[in-house]
């Protein structure tokens, strides 16, 4: 049976159109997936950095306990109590030098401060209470 060449040409054109269409879809998919990959990578790195700083309960607790053991803080007699995921540090009377040392360390570390209260007792002393989330 003789096949009309026009039919073959039409078939080839249809095939070509299909392949080009599929190629354009694939290229668009590739472009989108590259953008998504880049965004995901950026987001992942940011989440990791934020987690390291602000979502390390064990690390926070260890760092706080190490801070409390510092000899410079002995005069303040800082009391510690742990309530679920919160650690409360308080001193009924601390001199300004010790208080300053304590808060500088606290603010320079990545501790999640929930609440605190620093109250002047007299010219040289304050009392304070700090809640840190773990």
């Amino acid at each position, binding site marked *: 049976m003789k096949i009309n060449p026009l039919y073959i040409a039409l078939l080839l054109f249809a095939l070509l159109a299909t392949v080009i269409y599929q190629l354009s879809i694939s290229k668009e998919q590739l472009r989108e997936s590259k953008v998504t990959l880049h965004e995901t990578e950026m987001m*992942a790195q940011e989440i990791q950095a934020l987690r390291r700083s602000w979502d390390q309960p064990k690390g926070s607790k260890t760092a706080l306990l190490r801070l409390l053991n510092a000899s410079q803080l002995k005069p303040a007699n800082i009391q510690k109590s742990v309530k679920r995921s919160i650690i409360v540090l308080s001193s009924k009377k601390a001199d300004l030098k010790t208080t300053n040392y304590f808060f500088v360390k606290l603010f320079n570390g990545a501790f999640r401060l929930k609440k*605190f209260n620093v109250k002047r007792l007299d010219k040289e002393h304050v009392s304070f209470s700090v809640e840190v989330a773990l």
Partner: protein
Amino acid sequence: MNLGFKSKAKAFFVDTNSPPSLLEGPINVILSPSMYWVKRVKLPVKYLYEVKSLIPSLFEDFLPEGKYSYHAYKEDDSYLIFAYNDKEILDLIASKGISSAQLENIYLAQSEFATITAPIKVSSEDILSVEEGVVVKLPTLLAPDAVTMDLIDHQFSKQNLHLTRINQIADKKAQITFGVILVTMILLFGVEWIITSSKVSTVLQKQGKIFETYSLAATSFQNEAIQAKLNNIFIRQSRIRDIFNQALSIKLPKGMFMQEVVLEKNKVVIVIATPSKEAGDKALSKLKKSFKQIKTRFDNGTYIMEVAL
């Protein structure tokens, strides 16, 4: 191709001796018997396609050397089979001044004049006559009184030759070249498609690895929520430190001192002992400039500033 609707094409008889066409618009060509070979055969087959497959062997040793196309149709209890040379026909049609754009269909004299009862004159030298059911071209001398052919109201049969325009405008070699180009393009684009698809898979795999490496949640929505939550913590903690640092860096005038600094859920409260509200405002003016959403009040020697987080 006859699609069944009435064609506006004019009929034109083509023979080696016929004059050139002066017609305009679409033309249906009727081929002279001199342009094809015809046989009437009786075959023990049921379908026309079976006949068509047999035609080349039925014309074997009958046709001169050349390349032929074949056609057949049934008439009564026998089949009429035809052989013709596409190129010769197209060349002849072209020599009569009919362009490929004008050419609509090609018919055979056999199918168009099989029913004539008397010879018809097709030129000064030739007539068409039916001999034993076959239309033949004969010299005019055999029928000098034959009437001249009139094609004005000619009703065409359905037996047109399937010479498509592509046959007319492009020879076999050009068709093959065209086909090869198309196939090559299909292959090239196809290969590119496969490569691109595999690249997409690779990128998706990399994305999966990122989720694994960074211990991300299963969906983007969850990860965005985690990122937003951690960002809020970062912003809040940074602001607390900024407020506190600025508050402690203020040098209060003599007679004024800081009484209390409190961090509550949504605000930082700074309490200073001061003789007047104006003095308190002045002392903490730096904080007022740096932070928005500030509330102040003065109560019995105590100036209270609340900075929203």
